[in-house]
């Protein structure tokens, strides 16, 4: 019989309501941004470096895929349906959801102590040895203990910090650096990145990193108990397989 049906509920919430809300809003916005971003990309699957770039200039690299516009030479004899109109509308609307959710989440991170307590590596974790030990546990596939039900290990903490404080700010910055109104008013927004086309290329690279994060994140959730982890992120309630609970909880 699957033990997952027998669970022990712990009194403390695994994730606060605000974390759960912002988590799923960010997820929705991210999916919308990813799908519409791909739609926009296929209208010109060539990438450049610097301020300018077009079919008549040398690309940095090209995706050898069909395009949704016939102005791009792709080598394919057909043109995909053009979805740029609604894709752009939805891309920028979802970007607002992401940014506003991010502001609320950041304020919560700082003022609730969540950042200090749960995201910055804890005192004992700030060493290469701690990283090595954590990686070792993952390699030897040591099961999640009850302690980890209410805390993040050092790899999780570091990854979340990079996603929150490096990747998301970069994806927003590179996005703004493609806006003609923003770059006209504040040229440094794009020139610090090397120009409009550099910003577009970095926007793609950061997207790829965020998708990699999503894959690993969902993968780890699946490995460590998909239903329990999903339940924790939806209802907030931490649960533990009963066999583990008997062993570890008093």
């Amino acid at each position: 019989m699957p033990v997952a049906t027998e669970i022990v509920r712990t009194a403390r919430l695994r994730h606060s309501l605000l974390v759960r809300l912002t988590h799923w809003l960010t997820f929705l916005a991210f999916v919308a941004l990813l799908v519409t971003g791909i739609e926009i990309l296929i209208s010109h699957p060539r990438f450049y470096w610097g301020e300018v770039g077009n079919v008549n200039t040398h690309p940095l690299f090209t995706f050898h895929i069909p395009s949704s516009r016939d102005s791009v030479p792709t080598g394919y004899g057909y043109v995909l349906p053009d979805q740029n109109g609604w894709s752009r509308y939805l891309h920028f609307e979802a970007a607002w959801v992401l940014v506003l959710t991010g502001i609320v989440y950041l304020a919560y991170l700082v003022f609730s102590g969540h950042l200090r307590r749960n995201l910055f590596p804890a005192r004992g974790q700030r060493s290469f040895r701690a990283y090595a030990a954590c990686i070792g546990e993952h390699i030897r596939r040591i099961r999640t203990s009850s302690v980890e039900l209410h805390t993040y290990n050092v790899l999780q903490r570091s990854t979340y910090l990079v996603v929150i404080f490096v990747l998301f700010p970069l994806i927003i910055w590179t996005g703004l650096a493609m806006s003609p109104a923003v770059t006209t008013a504040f040229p440094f927004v794009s020139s610090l990145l090397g120009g409009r086309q550099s910003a577009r290329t970095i926007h793609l690279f950061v997207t790829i990193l965020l998708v990699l994060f999503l894959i690993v994140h969902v993968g780890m959730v699946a490995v460590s108990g998909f239903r329990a982890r999903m339940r924790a992120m939806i209802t907030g309630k931490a649960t533990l397989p009963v066999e583990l609970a008997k062993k570890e909880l008093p």
Partner: protein
Amino acid sequence: MNAVTRRKLLITGSAAIAGAAGLATAARIAEKYGLIPPDHGGLYGAGETLTYACHRVLTLNRPMREFPRSMISTPFVSPYGKLPSAYHASQAHNFADWRLKVDGLVDHQLSLSIADLRALAVRSQITEIACEEGWSYIAEWIGTPLSLVLREAGVKPEARYVAYFSIQDGLWDSLDLPEANHSGTLLTWGMNGGDLPVDYGAPLRLRVPRQIGYKSVKFLTRITVTDSLKRFGETFSSSNPQDRYAWYAGI
């Protein structure tokens, strides 16, 4: 009902009322200061309005960004449809008979030749044109600021938008008056030191460098000043109904 839940109810209730009143006030102020785009309704209206309002507040009064001459790059011809016979007839006369009509909410209707525009003012700007597809190029654009033509015509106080039309059937777009009056918005008849080539919109193209390329309509024949874009049907540009493009393209 005990005291705590009553207090909770009172707090929640007054917060809801304050929130609704706040939103209504914000909407009224936003409307007054021109922060609501015409396509504010529908599924994408909220995002569109936030973008437009923020850009209007933060970017409108900033100067135009220009590039050094050394950054002028290889251009690219954005595809355009078939040109009508009237176009070719004018082209045969080197566009000497081409006229830009300015009408609508103006004190004096105008009908200007390219030579008239040239006589009014000559400005050269090195700006980037960026397409929503992702490509871009920098060129020198030579022309007459739209703001000077509008001043010449005398815009009536109730005017809010400028609609502009191509000789190509059904092709048009529109701007709010502040964007139309921005120093970057140029009635362009020259490019990279010469005349504007046909592929780039000869003899007259409206360059709107603070917005994405599709607002820079080629083969311009008419400008109408208006208080409401609804006069032109259900849409606010010809790029909206066919491809659902956002009216404001500063992003």
